[in-house]
């Protein structure tokens, strides 16, 4: 039963990929400047034959570019988690501080993180910290808001337990508040890291240097369209992997 269902799903997925490649090939046949799936595949094989070569600052292997992008996302996201999650707890616990922060957050949240790039360049005077800064800003809001929501929506019965047992603030935090809110925190983490991965490509396009975004722009300047298509697929696959890891973590810690 289960295996039949699984086989059917795998078949459908394979068919979907084939269909996509078919449409792609058809489009490539019409437009001579768009490489088809086969051309792209051969180009990718060539590219991944030496992923970690290093010919100076503007010519590095694809592996380096992926790692640089991941590193920036990791740093920016990590800093945002370090600040955003505690901030979310504070906003969720104190209505006064939540009101204090509400106008600022409401105005800043809808701003595209890329708008912060010039500020980052101004302050840090360097491309790499500026793009980390942009990642920081873009990952901050989902974590702050989801954590604060989780704290606010915590069932009163858990807090009543804390009151009847007269637990210390520390015990309330470690035994009740944190585990209860953890699923919401992880939702914020998942959203944040998704946004961060979306934003890094754009930020690196603007700052240059290294990274997948820079590479896309560089290959556009070289008019190597096959490499751009490869980059799109890589960005998608890495994003998928990150999302799955975050989901795995969320499922591991969900008590519900």
């Amino acid at each position: 039963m289960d295996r039949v269902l699984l086989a059917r799903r795998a078949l459908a997925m394979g068919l979907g990929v084939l269909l996509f490649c078919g449409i792609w090939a058809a489009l490539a046949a019409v437009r001579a400047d768009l490489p088809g799936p086969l051309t792209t595949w051969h180009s990718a094989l060539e590219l991944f034959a030496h992923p970690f070569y290093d010919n100076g600052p503007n010519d590095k292997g694809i592996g380096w570019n992926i790692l640089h992008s991941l590193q920036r996302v990791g740093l920016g996201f990590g800093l945002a988690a370090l600040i955003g999650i505690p901030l979310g707890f504070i906003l969720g616990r104190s209505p006064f501080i939540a009101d204090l922060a509400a106008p600022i957050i409401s105005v800043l949240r809808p701003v595209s993180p890329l708008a912060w790039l010039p500020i980052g360049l101004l302050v840090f005077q360097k491309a790499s910290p500026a793009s980390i800064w942009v990642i920081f800003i873009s990952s901050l809001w989902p974590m702050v808001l989801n954590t604060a929501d989780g704290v606010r929506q915590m069932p009163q019965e858990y807090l009543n337990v804390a009151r009847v047992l007269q637990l210390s603030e520390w015990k309330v935090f470690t035994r009740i508040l944190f585990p209860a809110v953890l699923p919401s925190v992880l939702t914020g983490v998942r959203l944040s890291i998704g946004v961060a991965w979306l934003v890094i490509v754009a930020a690196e396009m603007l700052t240059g240097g290294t990274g997948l975004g820079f590479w896309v722009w560089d290959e556009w300047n070289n008019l190597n369209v096959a490499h751009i298509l490869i980059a799109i697929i890589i960005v998608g696959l890495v994003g998928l992997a990150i999302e799955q890891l975050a989901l795995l973590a969320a499922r591991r810690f969900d008590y519900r």
Partner: protein
Amino acid sequence: MFDASDSLLMNPQSSAPADARFVRIEQVGLTFQTRKARFEALREVNLDIARGEAVAVIGHSGCGKSTLLNLLAGLLMPTTGGVICGNKEVAGPGPERAVVFQSHSLLPWLSCFDNVYLAVEKVFGAQEKRAQLRARTEQALNRVGLSHAMHKRPGEISGGMKQRVGIARALAMEPKVLLMDEPFGALDALTRAALQDVTMQLHAQLGMTLMIITHDVDEAVLLADRVVMMSNGPAATIAQILDVDLPRPRDRLALAEDPRYHHCRAQILRFLQGHAQHD
């Protein structure tokens, strides 16, 4: 049976022995102030409970019986009057007044053992070593017949077992007063009967004062020395108190043929029908 007005006449300064008036609820009123309106939940509630006595509070939904329990627990503060427990005014929650919540309120991320241990650690952690704390926890779970499931999480056990853990957690604190807020309302009849028996046994063994909120007439008569009947809200108060003059230990099968039992049931039913809600 006597009217609540009788108890109103009791002089608070009277020199009754402390044990007879271990818990004193005096002239308690509670008005909730919401953003839009004021709601007077309780008005002039007076009740004395003797040490070791079992009192059941019964009334229609929304009559403020849970509110009364929360006042005793210290989770709510009265607007007027006061609650005294063992010569001390209730100013907040305390381990000497343990609560068994209607919704069991176990922490789903902790095992049954850890749920109980949390309470044990809080109450006895300062004086005792870890081994002793663990022994207390195991003993409490043992008392409610849950030794076999203590390392499971609440999500992995039945509703009746969860409520047993809730009782174990409360008992493990060695409370002077055990407050039970409709503890078995969500359980099926057989499980409910089993837990009522557990409650009776523990009350007989440990001798704590017991207040149980219920809307089950049989449960009230079976468990209580006195049944407190509350009028409908708003401004609910104690309307009648019934002495349940049945010998202990009580056996539900034997009681089924006892005319005194039926007499008590009939009195409560008559009261509840007289105060039927028309909505």
